[in-house]
């Protein structure tokens, strides 16, 4: 393990009204690993994601990305630093094509503005071509190249999740946050997703994911972090977590219900 982790949360706290959604949560995500964030519904997992990506501001605590405190940074700035995400409730640009959805991810690595576009300068055209190349490449990577001109809303649920991943990858992230990527997928699609997440790691991208599919989590995560009522109750390798009595009581033993947290 390298000396400093890619992401370090320390004493992260966020409350909504009187509810402690996230309470003094601290954990590290090391370079090149796949880490799973698990716990019952309402445990604060998505809130942790929204804190990392700047959608929410923590009441207290620090989020260090590559040694740099990203608390109070704007979301788009955090994306530019190299943190990309997908959403639990799919948030694609539904009326736009799959290709344009992925081009949205390319945006933060491009520079041309309104004037460049109006004058259609040579470097602006070159940049457009490069972006198209990256976008098509990422669609190919997730297996959606053949559907690049389909409107996002016309894709199947599983493919919409893959499209969100392609859009996130197009931002050239070093760290990818997946919020229930297998939600609504069948067994075959889930297996494809597992392969895809492994390939993402092979590209050198660190992955943090929330997932209720324990099979998937146990298969691909090197480390699990377990939340309950906003408090971290355990962290460690999947094998250890499976044996942890508190985790069994809080989550693993309990039947899996599929109610969604809101975001």
């Amino acid at each position, binding site marked *: 393990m390298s000396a400093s982790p890619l992401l370090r949360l320390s004493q992260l706290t966020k409350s909504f009204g009187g509810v402690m959604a996230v309470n003094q949560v601290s954990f590290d995500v090391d370079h090149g690993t796949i880490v799973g964030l698990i716990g019952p519904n309402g445990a604060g997992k998505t809130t942790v994601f929204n804190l990392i990506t700047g959608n929410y501001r923590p009441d207290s605590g620090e989020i260090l990305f590559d040694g740099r405190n990203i608390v109070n940074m704007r*979301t788009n700035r955090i*994306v530019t630093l190299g943190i*990309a995400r997908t959403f639990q409730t799919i*948030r694609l640009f539904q009326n736009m094509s799959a290709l344009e959805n992925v081009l949205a991810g390319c*945006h933060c690595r491009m520079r041309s503005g309104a004037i460049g*576009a109006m004058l259609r300068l040579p470097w602006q055209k070159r940049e457009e071509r490069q972006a198209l190349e990256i976008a*098509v490449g990422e669609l190919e990577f997730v297996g959606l190249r053949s559907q690049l001109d389909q409107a996002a809303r016309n894709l199947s649920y599983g493919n919409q999740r893959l499209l969100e991943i392609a859009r996130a990858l197009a931002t050239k992230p070093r760290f990818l946050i997946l919020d229930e990527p297998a939600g609504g997928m069948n067994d075959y699609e889930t297996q494809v997703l597992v392969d895809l997440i492994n390939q993402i790691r092979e590209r050198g991208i660190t992955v943090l994911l929330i997932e209720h599919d324990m099979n998937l989590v146990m298969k691909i995560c090197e480390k699990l972090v377990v939340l309950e009522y906003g408090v971290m109750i355990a962290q460690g390798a999947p094998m250890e977590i499976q044996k942890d009595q508190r985790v069994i009581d809080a989550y693993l033993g309990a039947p899996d219900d599929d109610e969604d947290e809101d975001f």
Partner: protein
Amino acid sequence: MKPATIINVLVVATLLVAPYWLNAYWVDVLNSIGIYAVLALSLNVILGYAGLFHMGHAAFFAVGTYTTAILNTQFGIPVLWLMPLSGLTAGFFALLVARPIIHLRGDYLLIVTIGIVEIVRIALVNNVFGITGGSNGIFGINRPELFGYVIRTPHEFYYLIFGFAAITVLLFLRLENSRFGRALNYIREDDVAAEGSGIDAAHYKLVAFVLGAFWAGMAGTIFAAKMTIVSPQSFTFWESVVMFTIVILGGSGNIRGVLLGAFLIVGLPEVFREFAGARMLVFGAAMILMMIFRPKGILPAQPRTYNLDFLAGPRGGGK
């Protein structure tokens, strides 16, 4: 040739020769349509591409028009030279007023922008800084001069206005098909997802406002030159409504739709003059019918097309 290309060629050709068969009155109607078309195209950047409900565009138009009127009558600066300056003034004004309200959504933004246009109009009536001439306005604005040729008649203005409209269409088409145009569309579709994809939504909304205002300000220069008299009556809330309606009814986010909207909204009431008192009634009924049968506008925005021929065969992203 594709049908769309044929229609484009026919429309451009018709517009080029139309003044030869029309009397001064109808050319003047076309000139009004042309100015409204440019204004609606500039509003389309804010309302159509970025989806921001901005009902105060007449305020930016007013700032541009008065900048030209004041500087021309006070300092005798040639009218057309004032075009970029009027645009900049309107753009700067937009920057000042839009900045604090940029985070407002939908109906809230609508109400605030209505307030802006009223504040500007009342400021003009009250002769703010003693330079706007109060409710009488400013008169004696010079005729524009292009390459030593003074533009006077409606027929001459026609080519100035539609020339400017043509340049606007060309540039805005490019804008639409660019990183900037896409960014505004992403924000319109879902601004949380847009920010999550690395797009600075607040920045782009502001730039959309400034750019739209810049263009409305430039249109103001031509308007001032055409009228030679400007007064606050030209910048009422109703003017904003007309521009808003052109964009929504024509097809927000679609340049062709906006142009068609300008012809219908500004042109039809003239055509319906034979209905005398009932003309606005007929016009209103026509509008209601169009909104029922074409809720996304007469010509809804079309998806962009991308030429991917330069990609030689399948290639991997990171595989």
